[in-house]
């Protein structure tokens, strides 16, 4: 991608377990904070991308009306929580194509646990008609099927998957934005109550309210040391087709191109921010994105550590598993944390000498698995 375009600002709201605030107040606050860090105002934006489950009946254009801005490029995410990462890649391409000069990408939602179940019951026609009437248990029931299959096919162990939740919690303890900051041990993880066997409580995210935002534009508008280049970005939807519970996702199709275009491989990443709706999906991303071979992730997890100071820093702010999942905002949390690290603003969870990192998105649960996958490779320049 163009050497002169990248991420020049980032922002986030506080997360709330329950809220009386409107969705637009979260989206506007995250957007304003991102613009503030770039030294820009809403009026400086001529491209707008929004990803939000709760946005209808509004859309990107009526959001522009709310913000009082006139835009030449408007993007509405349709890939669930894979959408925000995809929106960043699409914003870079829109700028390269001359459709806009400066794009604000926002993602967020304002729901809670009850709102999440209502959302899942009506997520798509396929799920509403052929999942909801089964008492499917929302995403937990579906991802329990995937996790059991991975365990039975490859011998993947719960105590290894638990390292993801436990090590991310260790990072979250240094993040004042995380809703869940208490200490967690592997014993806590393994002894937690069963939600959808084999899914346990600490495999699940806490649905909450909040929003995240980034600004995409000419890198020279950001001060030196605060410029984050987008080296490559890919997305894939509905892969593999007609499989209910595959042990792989769209990442496997574009991983080689993602690295080739960036000019780096998995070993060159100083950190990864993966989509952690469940540890099993983080494990599958590690396989599909080439950090280990398919089926060997349990051993990989056992011999690595994943906190901000670990051998492979993963979701260095605690991820959704500890911060909470602000709906689709969870799909941009990975990007804002990556930008924070690459700007050297991670404070007491700063990854040492963080120069580049990989971000992945995942989402749009269909009749079974999440249909959409996306990834970016980012570099401090």
């Amino acid at each position, binding site marked *: 991608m163009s050497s002169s375009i990248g991420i020049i600002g980032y922002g986030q709201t506080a997360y709330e377990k329950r809220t009386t605030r409107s969705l637009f107040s979260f989206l506007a606050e995250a957007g304003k904070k991102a613009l503030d860090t770039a030294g820009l105002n809403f009026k400086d934006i001529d491209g707008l991308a929004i990803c939000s489950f709760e946005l209808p009946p509004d859309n990107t254009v009526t959001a522009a009306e709310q913000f009082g801005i006139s835009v030449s490029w408007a993007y509405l995410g349709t890939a669930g929580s894979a959408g925000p990462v995809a929106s960043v890649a699409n914003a870079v391409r829109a700028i390269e194509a001359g459709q806009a000069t400066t794009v604000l990408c926002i993602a967020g939602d304002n729901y809670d646990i009850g709102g999440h*179940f209502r959302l*899942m*019951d009506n997520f798509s*026609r*396929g799920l*509403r*008609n*052929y*999942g*909801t*009437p*089964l*008492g*499917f*248990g*929302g995403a*937990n*029931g*579906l*991802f*329990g*099927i*995937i996790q*059991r*299959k991975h365990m*039975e096919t490859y011998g993947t162990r719960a105590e290894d998957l638990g390292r993801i939740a436990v090590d991310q919690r260790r990072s979250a303890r240094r993040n004042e934005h995380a809703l869940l900051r208490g200490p967690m041990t592997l014993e806590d993880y393994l002894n937690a*109550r*069963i*939600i*959808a*066997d*084999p*899914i346990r409580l600490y495999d699940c995210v806490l649905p909450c309210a909040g929003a995240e935002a980034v600004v995409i534009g000419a890198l020279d508008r950001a001060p030196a040391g605060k410029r984050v280049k987008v080296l490559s970005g890919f997305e894939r939807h509905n892969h593999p*087709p*007609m*499989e*209910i*519970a595959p042990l792989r996702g769209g990442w496997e199709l574009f991983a080689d191109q993602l690295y080739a275009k960036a000019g780096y491989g998995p070993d060159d990443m100083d950190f990864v921010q993966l989509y952690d709706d469940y540890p099993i999906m983080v494990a599958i991303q590690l396989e599909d994105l080439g950090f280990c071979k398919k089926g060997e992730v349990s051993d990989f997890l056992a011999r690595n550590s994943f906190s901000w100071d670990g051998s492979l820093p993963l979701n260095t702010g605690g991820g959704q598993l500890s911060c909470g999942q602000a709906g689709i905002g969870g799909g941009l949390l990975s990007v804002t944390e990556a930008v924070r690290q690459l700007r050297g603003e991670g404070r007491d969870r700063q990854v040492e000498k963080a120069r580049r990192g990989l971000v992945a998105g995942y989402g749009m649960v269909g*009749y*079974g698995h999440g249909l959409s996958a996306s990834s970016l490779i980012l570099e401090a320049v």
Partner: protein
Amino acid sequence: MVAGSRYPQPLEDEDNRPFLDGWRSGKLFLQQSREGGRLFFYPRPVCPYSGSTDLVWKQASGKGRVLSYSLVMRPNDPSFNDDVPIILAEIRLEEGATLLGRIVLADPLQVQSGIAVELLPPSDAARYPLPTFRPTGNG
């Protein structure tokens, strides 16, 4: 009112009416392109394998195997609360198509991946909004 109507129901339309009508009498119908090829589920107006919109309905045997499953302790809808743990299974039917289905079993902890399952008898079908299974030989 049938007992099963307490559960959330599928929304019936022209695409799924033959399937839902079939299950009301305890039968499971899959779709296929008229020219042949793989059978598929869930109901839709286009074959996901061939792209054909000229489709036919085929009655399945109702027999299959469990590929994987969850034991759901926290259902999405309160109408299922008395049923936990709900066995939510990915099932491969003899005809090759896969679907999500509930398995009903006196002791849910007896379920395992790989076991053979069959449709509940037609007399039990009215309780459940969608095709529901039991281990083969358990009736």
